[in-house]
């Protein structure tokens, strides 16, 4: 879901920054309240974790791979606000230190992947956890990919409506919803399946690890 700079109109990214900033401020307060003095080192560690999770290979059938996102795992393992902050910091690091992914796309990705991704994963986990933990984890992973993809597809798809010149020619991302919805959503619905499996395996390990640390 990495969108380079130049495809998102200021009519979109400026309000997105305002929204993201509000969420960041709120998240910072929540995380501080829950974790007390240890917020900062843990936030840094989960940011680095989120960074590397995005590099891990997500095996797909037929020998191909996609990149994992790790959003479901972060949210279920460490809480939605922590996950949202860590993912936002990773996006900022990628944009401003590695030149990967744009600064104008940052608030959109932060809200889509970080906020919507984390909290949809948590919702799936809470909703289905009563019935079966594995299925709930799988769905948490799947929703953490599929819903952000839907949001990004919608935002890209409305660019031609929001920003065009007098003749109606697009000024930013040039394709409408009829193109973006299938083009962005379909592959991510499939990638979500693989992410679901990884969330399941990763969480199982995390609980074992926590049990060992507690011993």
């Amino acid at each position, binding site marked *: 879901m990495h*969108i*380079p*700079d*130049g*495809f*998102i*109109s*200021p009519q979109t990214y400026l309000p997105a920054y305002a929204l993201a900033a509000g969420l960041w401020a709120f998240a910072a307060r929540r995380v501080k309240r829950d974790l007390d*003095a240890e917020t*900062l*080192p*843990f*936030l*840094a*560690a*989960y*940011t*680095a*974790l989120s*960074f*590397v999770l995005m*590099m*891990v*290979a*997500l*095996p797909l*059938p037929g*020998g191909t*791979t996609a990149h*994992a996102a790790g959003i479901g*795992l972060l949210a279920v*393992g460490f809480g939605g606000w922590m996950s949202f902050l860590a993912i936002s*910091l*990773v996006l*900022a*690091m990628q944009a*401003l*230190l*590695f*030149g*990967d992914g*744009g*600064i*104008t796309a940052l608030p959109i990705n932060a809200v889509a992947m970080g906020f919507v991704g984390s909290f949809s994963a948590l919702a799936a986990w809470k909703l289905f956890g009563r019935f079966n933990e594995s299925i709930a984890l799988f769905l948490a992973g799947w929703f953490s990919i599929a819903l952000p993809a839907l949001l990004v597809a919608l935002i890209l798809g409305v660019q031609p409506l929001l920003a065009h010149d007098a003749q109606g*020619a*697009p*000024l*930013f*991302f*040039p*394709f409408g919803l009829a*193109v973006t919805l299938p083009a962005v959503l379909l592959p991510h619905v499939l990638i979500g399946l693989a992410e679901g*499996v*990884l969330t399941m*395996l*990763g969480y199982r*390990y*995390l609980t074992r*690890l926590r049990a060992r*640390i507690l011993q």
Partner: protein
Amino acid sequence: MKRDRAWLLLYLATVIAATLIHDPRWLAVGLALVVLLAGREAGVLLRRAVLSVLAFNTLISLSYLGMAWWRDFSPWQTLLLLNLRVLLLTCLTFLFITRVNLFQALDFSRSLTYVLGLAYSQALTFSRAHDDFRYALASRSLQRPGLLDRYRASAAAVSWFIEKSLHAATQSSQALRSRGFFHD
């Protein structure tokens, strides 16, 4: 105001300006200025920027060309505008990254620079370790590893990173405590 912070603000203002201007001539002037500012590194900068947007922009441009041919309108003005803008913004960001120390630019918040600095150094360590996980599987595989093996390898890497980050967090919070970071 400090030099790096001034550059950060200038960079952000330029980014916004480049998305408010829709005349390709002005965007071209902007691109020329950025390249000029890069001086001797101009070639490297341009090459890096082109490579980093090549896949996405080629896909978008070709699709748009196809749509224009299908619906019979002229795509050139839009394509020029889009690609110029993307290239300008990407060059600008790369120039910013090579010239400005982000940690200095953000030093108005001690917490933010602390988190970013720690996360950055740990991320670099993790990314080297990630290469080793990838290489190790390649090195041990006489044939293409199957889906199950690839899942196991990815899950093992994920668990290792989780364990290391929990460990690192505990250690750095102890280090912070011993330096009295929390008490002033």
